[in-house]
């Protein structure tokens, strides 16, 4: 049913560290691979070897350029998949009940057997997290790898989303954001994790960690002592060298 369930205690989601993401796209492809083989219809590709290849992806990595007022421009890699919003508008608009939010963990899913492919949920999502599969004609979205995170066939440590398991730089974290003591919640707290488009009132579960301060120039007074010359000429330097060597363990003095 498209009514949102009462808020669950467990709120599973991702925390994505924009300070660390190098934009390698590993999460994009592992997601494509896992979800082509698992939950629901395969993620299809149209014109895959042709002039206009376009396929379904549940996770895409954008790149933005940010120009601070008084520092060099920066590039920020920006992965984006479903944020499993607490107030998920994509769910309530769905006419068939195919879109739903799981009562037990807050994961937002599409029951593909009931989806009529009207596209309204994708319209309702501000983040572009839903894509209609052109072959299956049903709505696809990030499942938070619901078929991995509880999967008894997987070793315990592998019960995380495919994108999290694969991320080489460790920029993706998975956990219970409903639990203030979970590792992800503490990370969000420590690093000032934020919501995307808070004004859209979706209350996303996924959080983003901001890039750390870049290109920070320390005051000359802090750095200068490290570069104070020991002598001004090579000759003077060699004199210093003799003294310095003498001070070393086993020195001649």
């Amino acid at each position, binding site marked *: 049913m498209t009514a949102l369930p009462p808020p669950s205690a467990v709120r599973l989601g991702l925390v994505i560290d924009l300070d660390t993401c190098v934009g390698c796209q590993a999460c994009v492809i592992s997601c494509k691979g896992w979800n082509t083989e698992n939950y629901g219809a395969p993620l299809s590709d149209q014109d895959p070897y042709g002039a206009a290849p376009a396929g379904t992806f549940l996770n895409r990595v954008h790149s933005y*350029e940010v120009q601070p007022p008084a520092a060099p421009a920066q590039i920020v890699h920006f992965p984006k998949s479903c944020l499993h919003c607490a107030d998920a508008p994509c769910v309530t608009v769905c006419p068939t009940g195919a879109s739903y939010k799981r009562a037990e963990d807050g994961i937002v899913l599409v029951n593909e057997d009931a989806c009529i492919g009207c596209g309204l949920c*994708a319209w309702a999502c501000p983040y572009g997290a839903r894509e209609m599969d052109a072959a299956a004609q049903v709505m696809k979205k990030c499942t938070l790898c619901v078929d991995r995170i509880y999967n008894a066939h997987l070793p315990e440590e592998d019960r995380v989303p495919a994108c999290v398991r694969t991320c080489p730089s460790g920029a993706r974290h998975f956990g219970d954001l409903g639990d203030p003591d979970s590792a992800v919640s503490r990370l969000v707290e420590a690093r000032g994790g934020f919501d995307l488009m808070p*004004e859209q009132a979706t209350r996303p579960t996924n959080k983003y960690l901001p890039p750390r301060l870049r290109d920070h120039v320390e005051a000359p007074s802090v750095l200068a002592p490290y570069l104070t010359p020991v002598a001004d000429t090579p000759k003077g330097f060699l004199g210093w060298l003799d003294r310095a060597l003498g001070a070393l363990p086993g020195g001649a003095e």
Partner: protein
Amino acid sequence: MHPAPSVIVFTTFSGLGFGLLFWLGLGWPGVTGLSAFAFFTIAYLLAVGGLLASTFHLGHPERAWRAFSQWRTSWLSREGCAAVAALLVMAAYGAGLVFAGQRILWLGWLGAALSIATVFTTAMIYSQLRTVPRWRHWSTPALFLTLSLGGGALLAGQTRFALPLLVLAGLLQAWAWHDGDSRLRRSGTTLATATGLGQIGAVRSFAPPHTGTNYLLREMVHVVGRRHARRLRVIALVLGFALPVVLLLLPFAHWLAALAVLSHLAGVLALRWLFFAEAEHVVGLYYGAHQGQA
């Protein structure tokens, strides 16, 4: 948004059809027998035809029946329910008029209410979307309603209602365009809030996630040239409102009325195209669209 023909046809024709049904339900014109049959046929062709067109938009039309289930939360579902209810009630009512020459007053009023409610639910499908600031406004249902009522009155030959309604709709539309142009900006959603990077500095899309296109870009990131849009707006206002009003003011002739209807229809199709094509979905921000407006 992508101006999909199926959705343009759907909203335009079903709007007109339910508008006509509304007036028929109220008994304006108070037709029976063959002429009632003619009016109802036109109304049903428009309303049902529009609804059918909307199913072309569906990936799985064979499952469309499921869409009646979520009326408690979903405007789209409500629209389906309302439309079917309106059509059934009006069918019973119309049957009375055509076959029995009987006008069951309460049934007509109920049908009229359901018809106009259907139009309202259609409008709410769009108006509810916070993601499209241009749509998320009282003027969206107001416009859908005045257009449907005005167009319906035009079809129903109710000039005394059609004239003021069309004038009102035209004014409302002109204002909605003007006001709508800044709604994205006023919504507060920008690439800075979309990425959360605004604190650092000015944000610009550097590279899209994929070099090709995708569903989101096709469906939600449609950019119309400003000049093109302005020209279409004028055409839509002239055809949709100005010309029909002028024609209605002229001494009545069937061909003039028919011309007024056709002109109105063409105008509404044009403004519906603009309704979708000009609507900025906030997801476009992620792809570097609408940066000028945000």
